[in-house]
């Protein structure tokens, strides 16, 4: 009975979306609360999974280490299965997805245009995200991966800002371009790997794919496919130079969608690298690790410099995401246990911290209807509670010790330094740049003379606090004691490193 928990988590939101389409159009609160109820179920189940998760099981390439596994035939002709389960890599992501989705329902309370459509699409999006993280069959994974695109396109395109149409189609085209390459890769693996889509079985054939005689376009099979998958995932992360869709999408998306985009969707890129690229192509990963580390450092520095130049608060936060995802790449590419755990932890922590930042931007935007950094000033005096919460988020993003961002970054640097000394040194400069752009922004927005225009800006309200406080508590708690999340992933990250380095 227990093993159906993941299925429930994935499909209860879909059921919710169906229910919402049948609700009367003008009952706004009914629609909102229904959405909240259907998003609460996965959250409770995710919490239960987190509680009952067997920390000593490893997973990655070992089916026995996966928990709550369901494996049913779906399309026998192609050996496609309904095959789901969680291990240390996916469990934290599942938790993050459930948490942010639930809170984002409340962050969307202010939406008044076509409510039914909004919440139905939002819940459909949650199904796609959950499904992606729990899938262990490649086609199932791909289907969920793509299912996310459509609601995202409409959520940005209908409820977004002034340039929403451009941003929506740009997001869609970029992501689709990456994922179709992945599809070719999936099919090539299927026919080469004895007609299976099971990720676990494909991982066990890593040596077959790396055989010297096996080529595509005259190049090594595993290397070519690694690059194809990497492009697919890199667009999602987004890795420089595939990042240009991200600022556009973020600026135009409504607040809650930005939160989901930065908090969950970006993680799918790095999750895909860990779940798919590394264990299936360990040889190629060894060869390309340095290049990935370099790209990671470029992300860190380039993202930080871009953030510094922004006038728009939301764009600043968007570029800070580009920068912070660089740490994940660097930690991953180090191929050391600390680096890998740091990367996995950074994925979780960045998800929470950046969610807070986007929610905070949403709070002032709802009041001032603009996000110009220079258009505010002295908000600290006008909205003290808001400013307090904001400081927590921004300092966590800076990597202040005692807050969750710190632990992950330290682990990444510890791990990366063993492999790439100079790159790590450069990456550490990113910390200074981060402090630079955040503190400069804080000075312009929260400190200084009160802007007369906003001297009566209402303080943050209870609903907004309700979306921020739980994440804030997690940020503080994990900053002091990160073990509850780290022990989920420890076994899996170590196994992943061994898989690659011992190949």
């Amino acid at each position, binding site marked *: 009975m227990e093993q159906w928990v993941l299925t429930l988590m994935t499909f209860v939101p879909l059921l919710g979306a169906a229910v919402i389409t049948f609700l009367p159009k003008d009952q706004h609160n009914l629609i909102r609360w229904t959405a909240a109820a259907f998003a609460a179920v996965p959250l409770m189940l995710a919490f239960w999974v987190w509680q009952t998760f067997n920390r000593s099981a490893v997973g990655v390439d070992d089916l026995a280490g996966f928990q709550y596994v369901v494996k049913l035939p779906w399309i*026998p002709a*192609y050996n496609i299965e309904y095959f789901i389960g969680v291990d240390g890599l996916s469990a934290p992501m599942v938790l993050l997805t459930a948490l942010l989705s639930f809170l984002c329902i409340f962050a969307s309370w202010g939406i008044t245009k076509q409510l039914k459509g909004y919440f139905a699409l939002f819940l459909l999006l949650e199904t796609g995200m959950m499904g992606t993280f729990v899938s262990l069959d490649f086609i199932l994974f791909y289907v969920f991966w793509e299912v996310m695109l*459509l609601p995202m396109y409409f959520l940005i395109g209908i409820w977004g800002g002034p340039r929403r149409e451009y941003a929506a189609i740009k997001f869609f085209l970029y992501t689709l371009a990456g994922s179709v390459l992945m599809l*070719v890769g999936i*099919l090539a693996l299927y026919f080469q790997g004895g007609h299976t889509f099971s990720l676990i079985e494909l991982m066990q054939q890593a040596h077959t794919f790396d055989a010297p005689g096996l080529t595509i*376009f005259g190049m090594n099979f595993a290397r070519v496919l690694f690059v194809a998958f990497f492009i697919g995932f890199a667009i999602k992360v987004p890795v420089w130079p595939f990042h240009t869709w991200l600022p556009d999408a973020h600026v135009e998306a409504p607040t809650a969608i930005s939160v989901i985009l930065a908090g969950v969707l970006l993680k799918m890129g790095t999750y895909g690298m860990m779940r798919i690229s590394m264990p299936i192509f360990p040889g190629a990963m060894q060869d390309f690790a340095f290049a990935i580390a370099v790209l990671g450092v470029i992300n860190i520095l380039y993202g930080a410099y871009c953030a510094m130049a922004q006038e728009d608060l939301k764009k600043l936060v968007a570029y800070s995401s580009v920068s912070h995802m660089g740490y994940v790449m660097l930690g991953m590419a180090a191929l050391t246990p600390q680096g890998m755990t740091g990367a996995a932890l950074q994925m979780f922590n960045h998800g929470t911290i950046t969610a807070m930042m986007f929610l905070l931007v949403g709070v002032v935007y709802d009041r001032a209807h603009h996000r110009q950094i220079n258009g505010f000033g002295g908000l600290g005096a006008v909205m003290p509670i808001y400013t307090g919460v904001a400081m927590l988020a921004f300092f966590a993003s800076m990597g202040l010790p005692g807050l969750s961002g710190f632990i992950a970054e330290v682990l990444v640097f510890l791990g990366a330094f063993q492999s790439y000394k100079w790159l790590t040194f450069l990456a550490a400069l990113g910390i200074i740049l981060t402090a630079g752009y955040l503190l400069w922004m804080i000075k312009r927005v929260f400190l200084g003379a009160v802007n007369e225009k906003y001297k009566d800006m209402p303080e943050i309200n209870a609903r907004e606090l309700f979306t921020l406080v739980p994440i804030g508590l997690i940020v503080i708690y994990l900053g002091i004691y990160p073990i509850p999340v780290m022990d989920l992933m420890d076994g899996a990250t170590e196994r992943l490193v061994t898989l690659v380095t011992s190949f």
Partner: protein
Amino acid sequence: MELSKALATVLQDLPGILPELALTATLLLVLLADLVAGRGRALTGDHAAGRLPGLMAVLGLLVSAGLAFAQVNDAPRVLFLGMLTADSLAAFFKFIFAVSTALIVLASFRIRHQGELLCLLLAAVLGMDLLAGARNLLMIAVSLELVSIMSYVLAGFNRNDPRAGEAALKYMVFGSMASGALLFGASWLFGLTGSLDLAEIQHALANGSADPLVLMLAALLVLMGIGYKIAMVPVHFWCPDVYDGAPTPVTTFFSVGPKAAGIALLMRFLYPSFTAEGPLSVNLAGGSFDPALLVANLAAFTMTLGNLAAIGQTRVKRLLAYSSIAHAGYLMTGLVLATPAGLSAVLFYVVIYLFMNYGAFLLVDAVGQMRGGEDLDAFRGLGKRHPALAVAMTVFLVSLVGLPPVAGFIGKFVLFGEVIRERWYWLATVAVLNSVVSLYYYFSVAKAMWFDEGEDVVEHAPLPAMHAGIIAGLCALTLVLGLWWQPLVDLTARSIAHLI
């Protein structure tokens, strides 16, 4: 003596063409019924009588479809002294033709002079049926002409619309050139081999020593002649104009029926002789002509050009016309492969293409009926005013792009999967990148429906229930097939099983 023997053979082979016979009978009955119904309508003013020919046509087409379906499992036979074959492949296509045309008849009741339209449609389907089974160059030429001439008239069916006149003329001029090319190429093949029978030609080519250059020219001419029917680049120019000028139900018919007939014919031609592992290539090993590579390049050009040209179209029918060119390119990728699984994948895609493309075109027709226009402007604000229709259109568009979890994805998955199985990696990569390009223009329709307000769009008439029902059915099939497609795989695999 000779005569009676021949007569006996003919009589004995008649059961092999039962679907065609059913069509012929229907055609004659519809002609009669139209006369009677027309007279009846004039006398009594009874509108229901006007539907009689249409209902009879649907019934006849369904009978033909049933008879074809019954033949799928039959052992393959050669009929009429080598003119036709009755095998599972032909049966599969006959079934598709009849069912797809029945849907068109159901969607075309509002068209004036429906009786005439029906006769033209039925004759075209008869030609397509014969094409699906043809194995003799003469038979191919004759049945192709039957389809073509009916198509010219159908394209110009809106007599009073200047666009229809232009479409019909363009179609005919291009069509005649294509027929000429086909006949010329066929005459070269006859000259090279001394036979009109496809099997004998293939046998002779495999064992003879034809000059590769001459053979390539002959193959190119024949390919252009057939390719014109499926709107293959570079013989696609007629397609957007014809699709735009013809009444939308007829366009819908053009976009699937004759195209599938062309695909069937290409299969007969290319498989197995002209493909990579066929006897021909073995014979020409080290030579300069690789037919598979030629088809692969044509496929790549067709899909790329179709998709690129579709960008920026504002008339949805033209947009879908270019999209159908692109889809011809996708279908051709399966013809490159010399495997039964490859052909089976093409059939699989044809069925899915039928559902989604019919859905999209009939929805354009629906919007045309309701809002009096068929360009992007007419779609503005559809999402707010008619959410169900807009959702259905979105499903078809998503399917045409090839995104999961709807049928279009599965079609591409199966088809490109076979392409990758045979290691045509570059072709598969070109194909999937093309579907990214296609996203842009398909979603210009989605954008108009969902993002634009369209408060000013005037609505003339409600949607007929029949039309809505067909669209709903196609939408449901597109959705269900995306999640459960095992039965269709089985059907197409069976259709390839008994191939001559």
